[in-house]
């Protein structure tokens, strides 16, 4: 494992760099002329309504989706199979009968892509055990994955992404369907990894609030338009109104951010940027 200091030696090169990048999917412009640079050790949060292209950004960086423009990920063009990128895709239900333990799921992050049946070794077992304990999942590592709760499964997926010792962590809605308590725990695991290892994070979410204090920079994507900056620069009524192309109000309630679209606005039918229903509940 690389130590945090040796990682910082390469701090000059950005973790991710997109220059004049355009992505068009099925005739729809997802983003145009995107310029984005993520420094090593930086935490970028990506927000936007459903279908705005948040997941597409991760897929482009993983080399699963081609986009125009200059794109560098960890100093080279995006390509599949880069072991220095950890990826946690959107949660999906797992068959409760699937004969697979948390331990097995995590191990796939280490050597699941290799050929051959893959017999166990003590080195591999130790690495898996270390990854499990780093996310606090040791207690249920031997239970079938499909029978665990959403929060427990999410910890295992993060351990799976971290076991390859990545420099860049891509997370797609990792807090979706988790209660507040589990949201906080997952955030703490990610913050702890970033503090100890100095890696970069791209965190895709529809609700900025759980990660507001971890976010170095915020990117908002709406209908082909985008804006990147410090959270307090982006989360303003002016910037958001410009992005949405119609009047949008950004208000702060009890230290949390709520983005309100005008009623009758077609965008109101989408998920609002900061998950309005949850906000109303939390604010009461």
């Amino acid at each position: 494992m690389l130590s945090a200091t040796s990682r910082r030696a390469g701090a000059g090169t950005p973790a991710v760099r997109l220059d004049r990048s355009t992505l068009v999917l099925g005739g729809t412009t997802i983003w145009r002329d995107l310029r984005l640079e993520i420094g090593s050790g930086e935490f970028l949060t990506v927000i936007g309504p459903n279908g705005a292209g948040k997941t597409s950004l991760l897929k482009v960086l993983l080399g699963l989706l081609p986009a125009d423009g200059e794109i560098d990920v960890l100093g080279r063009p995006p390509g599949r199979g880069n072991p220095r990128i950890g990826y946690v895709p959107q949660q999906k239900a797992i068959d409760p009968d699937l004969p697979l333990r948390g331990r097995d799921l995590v191990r796939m992050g280490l050597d699941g892509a290799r050929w051959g049946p893959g017999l166990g070794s003590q080195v591999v077992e130790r690495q898996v055990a270390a990854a499990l304990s780093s996310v606090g999942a040791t207690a249920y590592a031997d239970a079938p994955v499909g029978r665990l709760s959403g929060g427990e499964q999410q910890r295992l997926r993060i351990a799976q992404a971290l076991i390859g010792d990545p420099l860049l962590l891509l997370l797609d809605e990792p807090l979706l369907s988790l209660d507040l308590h589990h949201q906080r725990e997952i955030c703490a695991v990610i913050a702890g990894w970033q503090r100890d290892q100095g890696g970069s994070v791209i965190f895709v979410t529809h609700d900025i609030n759980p990660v507001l204090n971890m976010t170095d920079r915020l990117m908002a994507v709406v209908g082909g338009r985008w804006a990147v900056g410090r959270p307090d620069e982006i989360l303003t009524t002016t910037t958001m109104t410009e992005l949405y192309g119609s009047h949008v109000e950004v208000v702060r309630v009890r230290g949390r951010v709520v983005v309100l679209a005008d009623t009758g606005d077609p965008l109101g039918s989408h998920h609002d940027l900061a998950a309005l229903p949850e906000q109303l509940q939390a604010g009461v």
Partner: protein
Amino acid sequence: MTALVHYEFVQNALLSGALIAVVAGLVGPFVVSRNMSFAVHGIAEVGFTGAAGGVLFGVDPVIGLLAGAVLAALGIGTLGVRLRDRDVAIGSVLAFGLGLGILFLTLYTRYATEAFTILFGTITGVSRGDLILLSLLGVLTMAALAAISRPLMFASVDPEVAEARGVPVRALSIAFLLILAVAVAEAIQVVGVLLVLTLLITPAAAAQKLAVRPATASLLSVAIAVTVTMAGIVISLVTPYPASFYVSALSFGSYLGARLVGPRLALRRYRLVS
């Protein structure tokens, strides 16, 4: 009963039955985790058409069966790229294949008895030559499966991450369909086209009710498949009824047993809320 072992047809039946059961038992867990029961059924029915075509054109029915199964697997793999398309692709390939089978059946009038044996299995009709061919195919299938098992497992349970990690998800899916085609052609020798699922699904389904580790599930699946096949063949030798029936009955019994015992085992092991 031990005297039966001296007959060559009994030896052939038991040897090929054991080998086929091992192959089916190893392939089964992947069929279950990839939700491919319908593909197994489709491949088997087109295999039947291949065998019927073989008889019509004077080719060894086992070769015809294999050719039909492989063509069906390739057809399903090409047409059913996305999971959503797969069911429809299988249904279409299966229906067309069976249609051809009916044509062959009409063209070749002596065919009725042969059709019956392919549909319901004739393990006691396996010749020494068949045994060699089946062994060769079985060993090839197992070697191929061993080579791809780890990335295949990754692609089966976690396709998004597997793809990002450089696993050739699409190529593996085709490779597995081909392995499956050979396994189906083999299983048809024991239980016939209509009962292949009893060896390719049921033992694996029973095993996954009992095991939590991938390797244990595979071992259990093989153990169940071999046990029910051996027992089914032996019982059929001393009774007037076909092996296919006994194999499918024992297989189903093992599944029911596993469903009864499995949840209790799980509760005792993890004290999880079910």
